[in-house]
């Protein structure tokens, strides 16, 4: 019993180290843009909650990434010297968004939509909205929005042309996410799908049905390869489960066998 205090102290230290798991640090710091505008009423504060639900927020794109300015300095945050742009005019919007979405801008400019910019033609925000921007989906082509300017018929045609490939891409993305969750290395396949998706999305900003139909075959080929590889991986996962089932059954049977042997001894020696 003499050595007990030393042993206790050791144990105590061990416990302290082991069990200590405090709460996590607060989320990333807020920029001065969010701190100020977040509390403002009316149009000045509106964008903040909208942005918080956007895909931009999820990907770490904040106010200053589009609007410029200095997100670390309260007094100079909105100074043109620090690159503040503010709100773009309607005609400037495609150039504003196109700083990042380069490919889409190119195809849009060449399209009937882009040609009509400034003459009542739609720009990015018309279809995609602004601060609460979401991942683009095919549902953006719909009767309500398109028929604001023209008949829906031609838009529906485009939607038809696009929908097959779009569904294929979304399906592959879901499949790959599922495989990634299982610990499989899907980086390369995801890369292929991601770049196809980008190329495809810029393509249909040309709003040219013929062009979309023509190129769809090329996309189908690339994506078909990915589909095949996914099918191969699925197949292997199925095999694993099959063998896993065999192993589980074998183990249970072996356990039962040992248990019955134990029981036979018990009976022999009188049991209880």
């Amino acid at each position, binding site marked *: 019993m003499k050595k007990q205090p030393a042993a206790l102290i050791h144990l105590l230290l061990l416990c302290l180290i082991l069990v200590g798991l405090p709460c996590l640090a607060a989320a990333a710091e807020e920029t001065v843009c969010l701190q100020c505008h977040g509390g403002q009423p009316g149009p000045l504060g509106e964008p903040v909650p909208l942005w918080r639900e956007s895909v931009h927020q999820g990907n770490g794109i904040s106010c200053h990434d589009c609007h410029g300015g200095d997100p670390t300095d309260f007094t100079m945050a909105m100074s043109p010297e620090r690159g503040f742009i503010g709100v773009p005019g309607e005609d400037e919007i495609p150039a504003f968004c196109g700083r990042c979405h380069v490919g889409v801008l190119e195809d849009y400019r060449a399209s009937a939509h882009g040609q009509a910019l400034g003459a009542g033609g739609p720009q990015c925000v018309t279809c995609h909205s602004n601060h609460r921007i979401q991942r683009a989906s095919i549902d953006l082509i719909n009767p309500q929005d398109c028929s604001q300017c023209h008949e829906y018929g031609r838009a529906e045609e485009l939607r038809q042309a696009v929908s097959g490939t779009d569904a294929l891409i979304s399906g592959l993305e879901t499949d790959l996410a599922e495989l990634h969750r299982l610990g499989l290395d899907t980086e390369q396949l995801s890369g292929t799908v991601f770049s196809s998706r980008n190329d495809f999305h810029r393509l249909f900003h040309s709003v040219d049905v013929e062009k979309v139909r023509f190129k769809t075959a090329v996309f189908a080929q690339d994506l078909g390869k990915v589909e095949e590889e996914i099918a191969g991986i699925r197949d292997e996962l199925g095999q694993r489960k099959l063998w896993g089932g065999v192993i589980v059954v074998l183990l249970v049977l*072996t356990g039962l066998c*040992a248990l019955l*042997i134990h029981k*036979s001894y018990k009976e022999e020696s009188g049991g209880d």
Partner: protein
Amino acid sequence: MVNDSLPPNQRRFFLTIILGGLSTALAVVAGWPLFRFLSPDTGGADVEIVEIPRASVDVGGAHFLTYRGRPVVVLQKSAGEFAAFSAVCTHLGCIVKWVSDPGEFLCPCHAGRFSTDGAVLGGPPPKPLEPIPVVLAGDLLRIG
């Protein structure tokens, strides 16, 4: 159960045989992944042809590279005349060195010597160096 009619020791005899069989099956099922896990990596052994730029081998010089997981030496005997050999000494498997002064290979382990044709010039090696095909295709040397 049918077994219940048997006396315990007989039943146990059969159960022990079944247990042995199941354990063997499990050992095989567990052994195969283990064997595959530890199986040697093919490490590019299935690559039939290796290409290197012609400029990487000097005239009268030698260049060492790995081909099918083994060391290989490429030689430019005179301008435009190339030869390639396995760099593994046929004596005890050390890697030969190129000695440019007399223009021959020397094995540093037991002083085996080989000519630019791979033939044994002296020392203990029992056989010449194994030749590897090499052809010049434009600016590239194609080995294998």
